C-alpha cells in the first residue's frame, strides 16, 4: 500500500546541490554539530540551530525564486549553419508578491548540450525581462530545442536550485552558403552589362497575401495590415526575368566502408552548401530560381520574392540512392542551367 494516497505532483522537475560556499557552510555546520553534541553547550546548540535554519531557508527561498516563472525564446527568422546568430530569451516573473533575483537561464538544444546562457539579476514581480545569447548552429536541418534549465543560487549562495522546463521547439537552419565555382558562369539575367541589382518586385500589384518570413518591409501593405490586424504584403506580377535551373544531384552511391560513406556525406553536404551559395547569388542578381533534385523540385522563387522556400528545400534535402533518376530539365531558350553534385557535373546547358 502506498503511504501517500494521492498522485504525486511534480510539474517542475528540479534538483538542488550545494555550491562551493554551501559545502564549506555545511562543513562548518557539521563541525558545530559535533561540538554541540560533544560539549552539551547550549550556546553551540543555538548556533547549530541558526546555521541549519539558514540552510533550510536557503532551500526554501531558492524554490520561491524559481516558482511562477514563464519562459520563451525568440529565434531569428533566418539562420545559416556555421553563422553566429542572436537568440533572445524572455523570462516573465508571474509572482504576485516577490521579485526573482539572480537567475541563470540555459537554453538546451539537447539534454547534454547548452545552446546559450543568459543571466538576469533581478526580475520584479509581474515583470518581463529579455536577454540574448549568440549561437552558431553547426548543421543544416531542423535544430531541436529541448527546453530550458533555470537555476539560481539566491538568496544566500549556499544552494544551487535547478529547474528543468521541457518545451520542445524546432528551428530550421539553412545550409551554410558556400561560394561555388559555377558562380562565374552565372552571369546576369539581363545581359552582362547589368551590374546593379534590379529593383525587385516592381511589377503591377497582383494582390495581397499574408506576410511570409523573408518578405521585404517595403512590400507590407500597412493600411490593410492595420484594418485586418495581421501583416499582409503586396504581391506583384514579376518582371519576366531569366530562369536559372539549378540541378542538384543528390544521388549517393553505396559506400563499402563507413569512412567512405562519411566522405560521401561530407561531399554531399558541401554540394548542398554550394547550391545554397549559388541560388542566393542568382536570386540577388534577379534570376527566377528553380531548383531540382532527384525526383523533387523546390518551389519556384521569382526575383524579388523571398528565397526561403528554396532555402527550406535545401535545408531539408536528403540524399537518395544511386539508382534514382538524375535531375534533369529541358533546355529551352532563356533558361540557364547549372548542375551540382553527382559524379559528373554536367556542362552548362544553354540554349
Amino acid at each position, binding site marked *: 500500500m502506498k503511504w501517500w494516497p494521492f498522485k504525486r505532483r511534480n510539474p517542475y522537475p528540479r534538483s538542488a546541490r550545494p555550491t562551493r560556499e554551501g559545502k564549506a557552510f555545511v562543513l562548518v555546520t557539521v563541525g558545530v554539530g559535533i561540538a554541540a553534541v560533544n560539549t552539551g553547550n547550549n550556546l553551540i546548540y543555538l548556533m547549530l540551530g541558526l546555521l541549519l535554519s539558514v540552510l533550510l531557508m536557503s532551500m526554501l527561498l531558492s524554490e520561491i525564486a524559481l516558482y511562477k516563472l514563464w519562459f520563451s525564446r525568440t529565434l531569428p527568422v533566418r539562420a545559416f549553419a556555421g553563422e553566429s546568430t542572436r537568440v533572445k530569451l524572455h523570462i516573465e516573473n508571474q509572482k504576485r508578491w516577490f521579485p526573482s533575483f539572480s537567475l541563470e537561464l540555459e537554453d538546451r538544444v539537447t539534454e547534454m548540450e547548452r545552446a546559450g546562457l543568459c543571466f538576469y*539579476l533581478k526580475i520584479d514581480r509581474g515583470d518581463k525581462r529579455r536577454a540574448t545569447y549568440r549561437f552558431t548552429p553547426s548543421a543544416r536541418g531542423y535544430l531541436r530545442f529541448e527546453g530550458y534549465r533555470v537555476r539560481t543560487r539566491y538568496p544566500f549562495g549556499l544552494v544551487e536550485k535547478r529547474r528543468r522546463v521541457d518545451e520542445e521547439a524546432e528551428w530550421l537552419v539553412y545550409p551554410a552558403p558556400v561560394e561555388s565555382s559555377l558562380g562565374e558562369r552565372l552571369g546576369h539575367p539581363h545581359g552582362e552589362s547589368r551590374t546593379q541589382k534590379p529593383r525587385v518586385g516592381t511589377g503591377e500589384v497582383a494582390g495581397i497575401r499574408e506576410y511570409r518570413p523573408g518578405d521585404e518591409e517595403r512590400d507590407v501593405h500597412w493600411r490593410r495590415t492595420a484594418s485586418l490586424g495581421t501583416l499582409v504584403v503586396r504581391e506583384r506580377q514579376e518582371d519576366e526575368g531569366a530562369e536559372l535551373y539549378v540541378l542538384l544531384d543528390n544521388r549517393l552511391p553505396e559506400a563499402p566502408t563507413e569512412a567512405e560513406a562519411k566522405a560521401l556525406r561530407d561531399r554531399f553536404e558541401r554540394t548542398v552548401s554550394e547550391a545554397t551559395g549559388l541560388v542566393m547569388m542568382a536570386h540577388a542578381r534577379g534570376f527566377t530560381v528553380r531548383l531540382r533534385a532527384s525526383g523533387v523540385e523546390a518551389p519556384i522563387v521569382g526575383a524579388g520574392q523571398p528565397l526561403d522556400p528554396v532555402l527550406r528545400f535545401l535545408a531539408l534535402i536528403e540524399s537518395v540512392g544511386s539508382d534514382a533518376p538524375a535531375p534533369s530539365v529541358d533546355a529551352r531558350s532563356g533558361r540557364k542551367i547549372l548542375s551540382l553534385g553527382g559524379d559528373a557535373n554536367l556542362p552548362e546547358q544553354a540554349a
Partner: protein
Amino acid sequence: MNFARMHKWVTYVFATAGLYALTLGGELTAPFQALMWVALVGSWFAEGAYLRSDVYVKRWTWVVIGAFVLQVLRSFFLGEPFLALGVEYAAFLQLSRLFNRRGAADHQQIAVLALLHLIAATILTTEIGYAVVFLAFVVVTPWMLTVSHLRREIEDHYQAEKGGEERVNQLLRSQRIIGGRFLAATGLLSVPIFLITALLFLLFPRVGMGFLSFSRDKGQQVAGFGDDVELGGFGVIRDDPTVVLRITPNDLPPNPAPQMSFRMRGTSFDSYDGRRWTRAAVESSPLRMQHGYYPLRRHPSPGRDSVVAISLEPIDENVVFVPEGAVALRVPPRMRAGLPRARVLKRAPDGELRYADADGLGLQYEVFVEREPSPNTVLTHVEQAHYLGVAGERSRITELARRVAGEGTPELQAKRVEAYLSASGEFAYSLEQPRVGDRDPLEVFLFEAKSGHCEYFSTAMAIMLRTIGIPTRNVTGFVGGRYNSYGGYYALSQGDAHSWVEAYVDGRWQTFDPTPASWGQEGPSDGFFAEVRAMMDALRSRWDNDIVDYDLRSQMSAFRAILTWARGFRGTLQGGAEQSDDAKKETEVPRMRLNPWYLGAFVLTVVLVALWRQRLRTRRSRAKDPMAYVFGRYERALSRVGLTREAGETPREHLARLVALGFPAAEQAAFIVELHAQVRYGGRVLAAEEVQQAKAAVTDVETASRTGRFSVPDASDEKRAA
C-alpha cells in the same frame, strides 16, 4: 542608497557584531579593544584603487603573517594564555579583511569570520550579552548573505564581459537593485530563521558526551566566602546591584511585598586574630542524596515545610546559600551523556554547604524550610574553647561587654549586647571605613569611631560575647530581597552581602544581627534605572534558565508539557462525551478551555479575510480586463433566464438568436458583443468612457432579462423542430 553603500553598511554591522561577540568573554584587554574599535572605524575609509595595488596587498599579507608570528612568540616567551592570543588574532584577521574590501569574495570572507567569531564566543561566555549579539546576527545574517551573494553574481557574470568593469561599477552604484522594500523583506526572513532556530534548539536531543569541554566563566567575585575575611571586606560593595541569588518562595502571594528580608546563610568563621576571621581546617563530609533529597536535618515534609526555589549565580566560591530553618535540599542532577548525575554537595561541621562539581553555570536548587528553632547541639569543651578565642588581651572590650550584658542567662546577655550595638543609638551604620592605622580596629570601632559596616558590628558582638564566655561565630551571607515583578522572584545582589553572629546559647546556635536597621536603607537606588535593571535581570534569568541550562531533563519536561497540553486540547474537543475511567485519568490535567466566542471570532476572521481576498481578486480582474468582466455578466444574465450560449455557438450567432426571440435589450446586447469581439480578437484597448458604456449596457441587459417579456423556447420544442 546605492548597492555598494548598502553592502558596506551591512558588512560593517555584521563584522561589528562578530567583534563584539569576541569581547564578551573578557579575553581581550581594554587597550586591545580600544585599538580594535579605532581600527574598525579607520577601515571604513579604506577605499579606492590603491586597495588593488600589489604593494598594498603584499604589505597586508606580511602584516598578517607578522601578527601570527608575534602571537606565537608571546605565547612561548611571555607565557600569555593561548586562548586570549587566539581571540586577539581572530579579531585582527577580521580587521585585515576590512582593510582589504576589494570585491564580493572579501565581503564573504568577512561574513565567514564574523560567524566564526560568534561560534567562538559560545565557549567564551554564557552571559546575556551573547543573546543580544545572537539576535543581531539573526537579523543581519539574511541581509549579509543575500547582498554578498548578489554582489558575487554581479561580479561573476559581468566582470568578464567587454566593458565589464564599468558595467559592474554601474550596477554597484544602482539604487534599483536593492532598496528599502528589499531590506524590509529580507529582514523579515529573520523571523522564520529565529523560529526555526528556536524549534531546532528545543528538539536537538541533549546528549552531551563531554569528551571535550571548555572552561566557562569563573563567576562573580564575592568577598566574604573564602577561607578568611579581613575586617573591612564588605560595605564597599553595598552599592553593587549585580544579582547573586534569585529566590522564589512557593507560597508567593498574589501581590508580593516589594522587599523581603531573606537571610541566606553562607559560611561562618570561628577564629579571630585581631584583624581577620579565619575558619578552622576541618574536613567537610559529603551530603548523601536520599530519595532525591539532600537532608540537612530530616526528610522534607510536604505539609510542614515551605519550599523556596533558589537560583544561585556562579560565584568564585561554590557556597550553597540556605535560609534559616532549612531542613533539606533538592538539587536537580546534571545531565551527562544523556544520563542524570547527582550533584556533589559537602557540608562542614559549622553548617557551611558547598557544591563540588562547579561548571560555571551556578546552581539551581530548592530548599525545604521549617519555622521551628534549630535543634540542640552539644559542643565539646575543645570546641567551646575554640569559639571563645579573642586574640590577645581584651580587657577594655571585656569590661564593656560585662557592663552591657549585665547579669542573666546567656541568651539575655546576647540580646542586650545586640541591642546595645544596633538600637542604643550610640553606633551608626556607615559605609566609611574607620581609620585605624596600626591600632586594633575593633577597639577603634567600639570606643572611637562608633560607626562602620556590618562586619564591624558582627565582629564586635562576637568578641564581646566571647569575652563573657559565650561561644560565637561570625557568619557571612546575604540578607535582603527586592521583588522583581518581571521575573516573579526576589533578587539578592552583591550589595546585600551581610555579616552577622551566631551565638551558642541554651544548647543551640542562635542568630543575632547587631547591625543597625539603617543598613537596609543603603543600597542600590530605586527609580527608572532600577526598573531597567530589574527587567534586564529577569531577562538574564530567563536566558540562564531556558537557554544556558536547558538540558535533557528540561527537554523531557517540555515534551511532557506539550503532551499534557495536547491531551487537554483533545479533552476539550471531546467536550462532555462520556469517557472511561482510564481516559479520565489521562485527561486529569489542566484543560485548555475553548471559548466559543474566540472560536467564532476566529472563524469570522477567516471568512472575512477570504471574502476580502476574493473581492481583491475580482477587482484586479476587472481592472485588468474590464470587457471580460462585462461579457461574463452579460452571459450570466442570459443564462439565468435560459438563454445560455450553446457550445460551438459564436457570440454573434447567439445574438442573432436573441434578436429572433425578440429580446428587449438586443441593441445593448449587440453593442456588448461587438465591443467584446473588438477587444478579444482585435486587441483594442477600451477607453474609460467605453468601459462605462459597456457596464451601462450590461446593466440594461440584466434588467431586461429579469423583467422583459420574451419567449424562451422550450428544449422539447427545439427537439421537435430538429
